[in-house]
């Protein structure tokens, strides 16, 4: 392999020149402080959130178990909670977390909304965004790279030193790669310490006992961010090399940065939301209610669907009234009702989620043109703070709810007598031992395989960006002129 002697020399030269500029020192120091603040506040936020949700998950479980003997249907209404827990990587990437509801109340007959999101408790400051390590790496460092790199080649051209360099036997490819390495070198002075701190915090949060899954996610998190930053080093040098003056280079680079990080993410998502208009809650729930009524309304004594069930039960068991059935009739009816209503609910939810996917598809596709969206989606996926993770949490909660409700119905069918109570009879109960039969809600975040599967577009676009930039360096080295 050819030695990179010349390139390294150019890189060193650029780095020295950069550090002669006192402004760079100040900016670097400043970004360092922001990184520390982001790490600290991310940590605080994470521990707050997880401690609270663990505390109340535990407390509500104890409460559930403490219930005395009662009718299982009472317990189905007593219900359970699903509290959302964050994964360690979310210390560095908040993603959509502030907009996620943190608690879902799970009870019979009813799919409740996920409530208590940070956003619901904040004023509009939140909408300006949050400061996290990922935000610094994804938004601020690229701009710093552009500020460092805009005159990498253009200034040499303006000074006339470019001709000198090229006439000394250095070719364009060496020059470009040297400059790229030089900027990367400066950025690594920020990136490497950040990663060291990051890994340390990450280990600390898990008490140094890490799973393979979390480790792969962490490694990919670092790797993708490294590649992402390299993209910007390459873009900076290429634009600088193809601009007549450093001012033009600077303006183009600022434009690119604005489009990538501010304008495109917002507009593409807004276009998706504008074209595919999502229903509001009142409409969504109204439609579900209508469909359930069409299927059969268990509250309506004359409902055809339930009357048919009743008649067929009576004829199979050869009895003349539901009280004579060998099991609890109303428990049986509720089992049926729960089955129907959650089937209908899930069908409507599927439709809604497909619509959301369509809304998101615009910004997902744009990741091919915009590495910022690609990295943002990847890092949110890895830190379990993306759209899919949230839907996944809600689905796990709904599965739990359904099983809990049906378990209580089954207990009622099996253990509660069928006789009609008089107005002064005590309600029929079952032993409280049964409450422990319903396991505690446990949220399992998506594994790395699923994350990569749902973010496949982003992975592909990162690969395409690598190829494209390599090709561009080749083309540029052949076609660039010194003047």
């Amino acid at each position, binding site marked *: 392999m050819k030695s990179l002697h010349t390139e390294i020399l150019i890189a060193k030269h650029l780095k020295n020149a950069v550090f002669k500029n006192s402004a760079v020192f100040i900016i670097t120091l400043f970004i360092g402080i922001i990184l520390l603040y*982001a790490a600290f506040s991310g940590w605080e936020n994470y521990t707050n959130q997880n401690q609270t949700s663990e505390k109340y998950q535990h407390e509500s479980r104890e409460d559930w178990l403490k219930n005395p003997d009662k009718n299982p249907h*009472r317990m189905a209404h007593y219900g359970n909670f699903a509290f959302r827990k964050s994964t360690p990587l979310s210390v560095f990437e908040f*993603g959509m977390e502030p907009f996620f509801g943190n608690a879902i109340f799970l009870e019979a007959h009813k799919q409740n909304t996920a409530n208590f999101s*940070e956003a619901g408790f904040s004023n*509009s400051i939140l909408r300006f965004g949050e*400061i996290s390590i990922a935000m610094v790496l994804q938004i601020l460092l690229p701009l710093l790279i552009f500020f460092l790199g805009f005159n990498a080649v253009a200034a040499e051209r303006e000074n006339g030193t470019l001709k000198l360099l090229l006439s000394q036997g250095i070719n364009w490819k060496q020059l470009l790669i040297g400059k790229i390495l030089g900027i990367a070198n400066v950025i690594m002075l920020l990136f490497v310490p950040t990663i060291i701190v990051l890994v340390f915090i990450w280990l600390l949060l898990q008490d140094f006992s890490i799973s393979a899954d979390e480790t792969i996610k962490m490694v990919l998190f670092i790797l993708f961010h490294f590649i992402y930053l390299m993209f910007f080093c390459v873009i900076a040098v290429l634009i600088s090399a193809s601009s007549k003056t450093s001012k033009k280079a*600077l303006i183009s680079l600022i434009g690119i940065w604005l489009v990538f990080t501010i304008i495109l993410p917002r507009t593409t998502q807004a276009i998706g939301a504008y074209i595919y208009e999502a229903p509001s809650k009142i409409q969504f729930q109204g439609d579900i209610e209508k469909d359930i009524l069409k299927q059969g309304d268990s509250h309506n004594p004359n409902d055809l669907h339930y009357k048919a069930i009743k008649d067929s039960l009576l004829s199979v068991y050869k009895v003349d009234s539901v009280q004579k059935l060998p099991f609890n009739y109303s428990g049986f009816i509720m089992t049926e009702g729960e089955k129907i209503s959650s089937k209908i609910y899930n069908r409507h939810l599927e439709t809604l989620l497909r619509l959301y996917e369509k809304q998101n598809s615009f910004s997902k596709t744009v990741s091919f043109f915009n590495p910022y969206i690609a990295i943002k989606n990847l890092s949110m996926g890895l830190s379990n703070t993306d759209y899919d993770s949230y839907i996944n949490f809600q689905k796990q909660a709904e599965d739990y709810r359904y099983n809990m409700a049906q378990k209580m119905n089954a207990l009622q069918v099996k253990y509660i007598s069928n006789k009609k109570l008089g107005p002064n009879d005590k309600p029929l109960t079952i032993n409280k031992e049964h409450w422990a039969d319903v396991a505690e809600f446990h949220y399992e975040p998506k594994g790395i395989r699923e994350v990569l599967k749902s973010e496949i577009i982003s992975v592909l676009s990162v690969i395409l960006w690598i190829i494209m930039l390599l090709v561009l360096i080749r083309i540029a080295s052949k076609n660039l002129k010194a003047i």
Partner: protein
Amino acid sequence: MLALLFKNFIRSKGTKIGLIFLLIIGFISLLVGQQFQQKQQNNIKEAVNYQKEHIARNTAFHKDEIGLLLYYIKFSLVNKTLPINSLAIGQHDINPSIQTVTIRGLEAQKYNTELNNPNNLLSGNIDFSFVLIYLFPLLIISFSYNLVSEEKESGTWKIVATQSENTFLYILKLFYIRILSLILLFTIILFIAVLFLGIPFDKSLLAFYGLGILYILFWFSVSFFIVSLQKDSNFNAVILLTIWLFLIIILPAIINTYVVNKYPVPEALELTVKQRNAYHEKWDVDKKITMDKFYNHYPQFRHYALPESEFSWLWYYAMQQAGDDDSAQQSQELENKLQQRNKASQFIAQFIPTLHTQIQLNEIAKSDLGNQLLFLKETKQFHEKLRLYFYPKIFNNAAVAKENWSKFKVKTFNDPSEINFAKAFLPLLIFNLLLISLGWMRFRNSK
């Protein structure tokens, strides 16, 4: 002279592209606002229809048990969205504008959220306030970062200096035409908005307009100050963009993180766990305890004695009431925390013009946290009124048919808070004056 300068400014390709881009995106923001407005209106229509059908259906099913009927019936309260809300959507996409509640325990219903795609919430709306707060400054910066410096770099400054007797006046004129064109653009978009979205000419619109102009002037003042430092164009561009970055991205993010960490709200989860237990445990304790609590809260219902039977609606609603009463403390704490959050961030925002403008625009449009808190309070009163109306009927088991159900229409909440012009305008005014005088002094001294 002024006309020539203007011609020179407007002829440049960059200027035209910038202005047209802003006009188009401004127009898009109005479309987004219109869609938001329609969605809100549809929701209200939907709520009105739903309530009518829903009450009719349930009154038909549960003809002889008003207690059971009211277990099911839901009543809606609408948080009125002003037309101007479409210009600053604020938190109205996150917080539901309609609360639908039964007369059972309120704490279990009050915090229900709107259905949302979190992706949309994260990226935010392109409403007009976004265009004004994020994009206008960028255009202002691009119009003014190279004033003077560009002429110095290209060598034409010397000609200007020798030809005009007062170079400072010349610089002012350069700014004047730029300020005028952007204010004109702002006015045009706002005027279209007024026609397009049916925004009435009132105090809110005036405040919105005033705030917008002060905000535009703020960014010109910043540019004016930076230009007065008389550095080269590259330096100006970098420093202005850095200021933009600070005011729009870094500082708001830091402050938000600070406020969130300073005032965490574990009360929310505590409240939800507490109210569940408070209600459900009453099924298993002596009825007398529940009833005593209930009579203490509502002495006027003391004469309704608990019936002998195992179950009665009086007891049931007393249990539901207990869920709210026993968790009232947590509920109050949560409300106080949110008030504190809102106050703290509003206070800090006064020192950061971008944040201040956004919050004030949302306040004017009644779409911020303050409005939401008032709406929650109103929901509580709405709910209480219904309870007080229905409790005696339930306890007497009044005939369902005798009640005039059609009078239970969807109610609307009008946020009564007044616009405080001083609070809205002063911070920006002070910043503007400060920056202009600093810039003025710089120019004076440099001559």
